[in-house]
């Protein structure tokens, strides 16, 4: 195995890069767009051309980019004869399609989009044929399903287009899923995910007990992609696509991917009875069935679609025979089918384009009006029929030859007879295409006046037909190509075969003559047969597929609606119960070590606090219908928790808890201003009992868990923090040093979350006030029982006097935070409480009018300062958020330490302050909206007016 494939990844990548171009180039015009689409294709062809001599010599070129080699994940590519043949077909036909589509697409079709999809698809196909790693191959395989979905559904306004695209995606996507399973099994058996390795291990794989599952799964993928019976139905429906797409997908690429895969895996998977019976039988059925249906299709493209199904069946059957001769014939027919079928699709497109109909019953006599098109179409169709001097004849003869030697389940005649029948039907529909479209009398009722299209449009099919004839007359021309690809399929040595027109009078020739004569007779009888066919009941694949999809949808809907019935309390109950069950399983599944810790004594104060907490919690639950009372009790619980933190050596937590408690209660009080003040009694006793059981079980479980670990020692990483806090972080308050230094990144993330929460609330409030709720609020009546003395004198005076003191306390807590309990979080909360007091005492508008800094920008500045502090460490060459500190001596005051952590903590402080204020400010603004009045004076209540008590409130 030689290397030298360094260009392969570039070739695989080129179309994807190129896909970016058409969208831009369409601005420069349609011709420029098409030309630039051709550039990556041509470049890829040239690069492949440089490698062709080596491949023709029998070398295998490889290239590998390691990604996670330990998991077998490498982006590895290889190029052998089969890969080169397919790559050239994909690129060559792609180029012709690019040219053809330039003239085919109407001016209102978005051409840039079309070429982008086309290049995406081309890249995915190239990836399949060049991949060495089968996992990479699978990715490209799925990409073809996705990009073909875009191409088939290109005419988004057509319902058939959308349905066809969806059906193609569902069928090929499902097959792709099966194939993933098969490929993974294959890779496991072979011990490698590289095709080059797998192909060496045919015997081991065929002997493995996992061979059959792998085979079936992989074949499911190949059969769905190549439209084999019973998955053939998607292909005709994909005909809703523009004709260039049909010509590309259904002659050279998409549907050939399955055939390619079977050919690729042929050395590994073929040669067993399972392979023979599954693959050849499927192929045979598909071939005959497809040809039969094609004969009775009136839509030109549908006829071609079913003929494609039939020919894919032929190829599958040949590969299924498992003989080397049949495999080489398959390779030869792949080339021939490509040339005549692409030409035929393009011809059908031209006819449609010129006459505005594809209905064979409305066509005929076009040979007089469109001589060039008629010539091209006739030559290509004759090849499809298998008439001598056209290339289809050669491979059909060889196919019949291979079939005549094949016995199926002991029967000598079954395969030859059915193969002849397939060929006969093929002759019939091919001649129908010729005779019913181009021959016969000229008609005068075409929907449009037909004439030959411009050169650009018939150039591509003409080129293909020239190849059809050249190969048909002088088959040696493609001899080296067939040999090269055939050798790659059969794994080295080639069987005896000869590419020539005259093999003498043999079995195949007899079968061929029967086919041609029978086919012509069938065509002559077409009219009565057609009536009989239309009258006969036939299963409609689309109806079956739709019914299947509908029943699947119904099942999933039942399951989803059964689980998601809209009851949140039910979800939560299920969630808690499931968590409990998991916890119980884990608890009983493990073993417990004996307790190692002594219990600490319980002082009376702690016992009293505990009692308060338990009673308050119980009262919250009992009294939760009275919402105010429950809220007050929540405050008691918060205070007890904070006291617990004080007692248990967590001063920082106590400070935080107590300040958060304050703002939380304020927040809930504000919310309660709008919400109903009581909770109605709604749940049944049974319901409450169920919830109670769940709650008690959850509480008991958590308590048991806590008790269990509290009685046992553990190893902690905190010694590191304690040892390095002062020497490394420059602070003695280890908790704060952890926050701003050791785990500064966490803190950074957390303040950003908090900032986002603040902005979310602001945004929600804006949306709410501008929506119907805002109008409802405006119209809502002001509660009549509101106190007139909303801004009591004492409270206003007290809060204003306290403001500077509280701010000073906040600053103090902030400054000492690095060495003593405190820091940015607590300081931010303390200052926000100071500000909130002003809002409460003096009113929203009064305070807002004196507030100079936007809370949004405070959040922004905070996050920015914290982030810049982290980035600053980069200047010193250290990682993000590495802190530095030093000592500074200012006149008059003592020497003090100052570190970058200080700036970080400032950022934390600003973000916390901004977020908390923004949250509460937003809620208050809703209140303001709901008819809150503004006090113009600091105090809006003058006690001397008590007698009249009539002073109107200013708005």
């Amino acid at each position: 195995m030689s290397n030298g494939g360094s260009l392969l990844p570039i070739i695989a990548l080129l179309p994807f890069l190129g896909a970016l171009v058409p969208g831009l180039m369409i601005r420069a015009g349609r011709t420029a767009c098409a030309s630039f689409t051709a550039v990556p294709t041509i470049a890829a062809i040239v690069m492949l051309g440089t490698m062709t001599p080596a491949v023709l010599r029998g070398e295998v070129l490889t290239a590998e980019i390691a990604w996670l080699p330990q998991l077998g994940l490498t982006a590895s590519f290889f190029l052998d004869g089969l890969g080169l043949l397919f790559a050239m077909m994909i690129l060559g036909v792609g180029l012709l399609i690019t040219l053809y589509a330039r003239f085919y697409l109407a001016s209102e079709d978005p051409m840039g989009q079309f070429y982008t999809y086309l290049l995406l698809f081309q890249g995915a196909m190239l990836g399949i044929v060049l991949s060495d790693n089968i996992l990479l191959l699978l990715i490209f395989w799925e990409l073809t399903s996705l990009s073909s979905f875009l191409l088939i559904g290109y005419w988004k306004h057509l319902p058939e287009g959308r349905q066809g695209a969806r059906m193609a995606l569902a069928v090929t996507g499902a097959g792709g899923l099966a194939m993933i399973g098969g490929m993974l099994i294959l890779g496991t058996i072979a011990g490698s995910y590289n095709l080059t390795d797998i192909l060496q291990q045919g015997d081991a794989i065929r002997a493995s007990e996992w061979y059959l599952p792998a085979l079936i799964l992989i074949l499911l993928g190949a059969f769905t992609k190549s439209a084999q019976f019973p998955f053939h139905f998607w292909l005709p429906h994909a005909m809703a696509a523009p004709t260039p797409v049909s010509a590309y997908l259904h002659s050279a690429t998409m549907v050939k991917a399955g055939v390619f895969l079977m050919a690729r895996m042929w050395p590994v998977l073929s040669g067993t009875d399972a392979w023979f019976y599954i693959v050849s039988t499927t192929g045979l059925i598909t071939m005959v069935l497809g040809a039969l249906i094609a004969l009775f299709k009136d839509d030109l493209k549908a006829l071609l679609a079913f003929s494609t199904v039939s020919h894919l069946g032929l190829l599958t059957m040949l590969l299924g025979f498992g003989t080397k001769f049949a495999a080489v014939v398959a390779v030869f027919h792949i080339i021939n089918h490509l040339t005549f079928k692409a030409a035929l699709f393009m011809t059908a497109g031209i006819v449609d384009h010129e006459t505005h109909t594809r209905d064979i019953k409305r066509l005929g006599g076009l040979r007089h009006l469109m001589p060039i098109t008629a010539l091209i179409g006739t030559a290509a169709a004759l090849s499809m029929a298998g008439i001598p001097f056209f290339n289809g004849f050669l491979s059909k003869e060889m196919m019949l030859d291979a079939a005549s030697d094949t016995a199926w389940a002991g029967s000598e005649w079954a395969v030859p007879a059915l193969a002849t029948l397939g060929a006969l039907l093929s002759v019939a529909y091919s001649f129908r295409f010729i005779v019913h479209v181009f021959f016969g009398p000229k008609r005068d009722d075409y929907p449009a006046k037909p004439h030959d299209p411009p050169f650009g449009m018939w150039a591509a099919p003409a080129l293909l037909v020239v190849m059809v004839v050249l190969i048909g007359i002088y088959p040696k021309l493609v001899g080296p190509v067939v040999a090269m690809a055939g050798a790659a399929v059969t794994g080295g040595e080639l069987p005896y075969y000869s590419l020539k027109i005259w093999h003498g009078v043999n079995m195949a020739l007899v079968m061929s003559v029967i086919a041609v004569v029978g086919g012509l007779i069938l065509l002559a009888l077409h009219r009565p047969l057609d009536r009989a066919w239309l009258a006969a009941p036939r299963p409609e694949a689309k109806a079956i597929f739709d019914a299947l999809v509908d029943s699947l949808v119904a099942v999933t809907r039942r399951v989803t609606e059964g689980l998601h019935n809209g009851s949140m309390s039910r979800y939560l109950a299920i969630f808690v119960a499931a968590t409990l069950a998991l916890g119980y399983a884990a608890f009983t599944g493990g073993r417990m070590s004996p307790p190692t810790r002594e219990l600490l004594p319980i002082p009376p104060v702690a016992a009293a606090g505990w009692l308060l907490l338990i009673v308050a919690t119980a009262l919250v639950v009992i009294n939760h219908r009275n919402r105010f009372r429950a809220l007050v009790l929540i405050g008691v619980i918060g205070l007890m928790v904070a006291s617990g933190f004080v007692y248990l050596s967590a001063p920082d937590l106590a400070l935080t808890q107590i300040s958060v408690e304050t703002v939380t209660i304020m927040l809930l009080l504000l919310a309660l201003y709008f919400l109903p003040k009581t909770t109605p009694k709604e749940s049944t006793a049974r319901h409450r009992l169920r919830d109670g059981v769940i709650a008690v079980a959850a509480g008991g479980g958590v308590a048991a868990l806590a008790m269990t670990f509290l009685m046992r020692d553990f190893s902690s990483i905190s010694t590191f923090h304690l040892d390095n806090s002062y020497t490394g972080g420059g602070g003695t308050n280890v908790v704060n040093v952890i926050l701003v230094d050791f785990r500064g990144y966490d803190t950074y993330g957390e303040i950003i979350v908090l900032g986002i929460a603040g902005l979310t609330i602001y945004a929600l409030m804006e949306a709410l006030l501008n929506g119907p709720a805002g109008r409802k609020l405006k119209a809502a009546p002001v509660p009549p029982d509101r106190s007139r003395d909303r801004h009591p004198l004492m409270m206003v005076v007290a809060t204003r006097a306290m403001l500077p003191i509280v701010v000073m306390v906040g600053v103090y807590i902030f400054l000492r935070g690095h060495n003593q309990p405190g820091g940015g979080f607590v300081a931010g909360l303390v200052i926000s409480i100071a500000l909130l007091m002003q809002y409460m005492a003096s009113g929203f508008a009064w305070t807002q009018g004196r507030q100079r800094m936007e809370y949004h920008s405070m959040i922004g500045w905070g996050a920015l300062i914290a982030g810049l502090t982290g980035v600053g460490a980069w200047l010193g060459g250290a990682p993000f958020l590495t802190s530095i500190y030093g000592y500074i001596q200012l006149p008059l005051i003592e020497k003090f330490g100052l570190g970058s952590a200080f700036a970080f903590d400032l950022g934390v402080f600003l973000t916390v302050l901004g977020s908390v204020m923004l949250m509460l400010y937003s809620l208050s603004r809703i209140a303001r909206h709901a008819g809150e009045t503004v006090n113009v004076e600091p105090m809006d209540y003058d006690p001397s007016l008590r007698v009249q008590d009539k002073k109107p409130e200013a708005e």
Partner: protein
Amino acid sequence: MELVVASSVGVLTAGGVYLILRLRAFPVILGLALLSYAVNVFLFATGRLAINAPPVLQLYGEASYTDPLPQALVLTAIVISFGMTAVLVMVALGAYLEADDDRIDLEPDEEAQAETTAKKETGA
């Protein structure tokens, strides 16, 4: 003392779980507040309990310190849980103002209605 902490966590959890299973938004918010206390104390307790050993270094003289790491984690958790509560309150408030009702469950007919409007929106 361990028993005190463990039983407090248990009672707070039980109360919290019972309240989040109620049918109205406000008790659910209260329940979440109780659960926040429980979870914070629980996490704090993973550092084990110690008295008179705050993790503030004494530069001179010997002293013992409790585990500072859970404290640092819980400190931010307390602040974040406030943010979460605030968002929830706002959402509940919005829902109440739009629907005149603070039930958290969709009634079967309401659900059907929501579905048809969703269908109409996607169909349009």
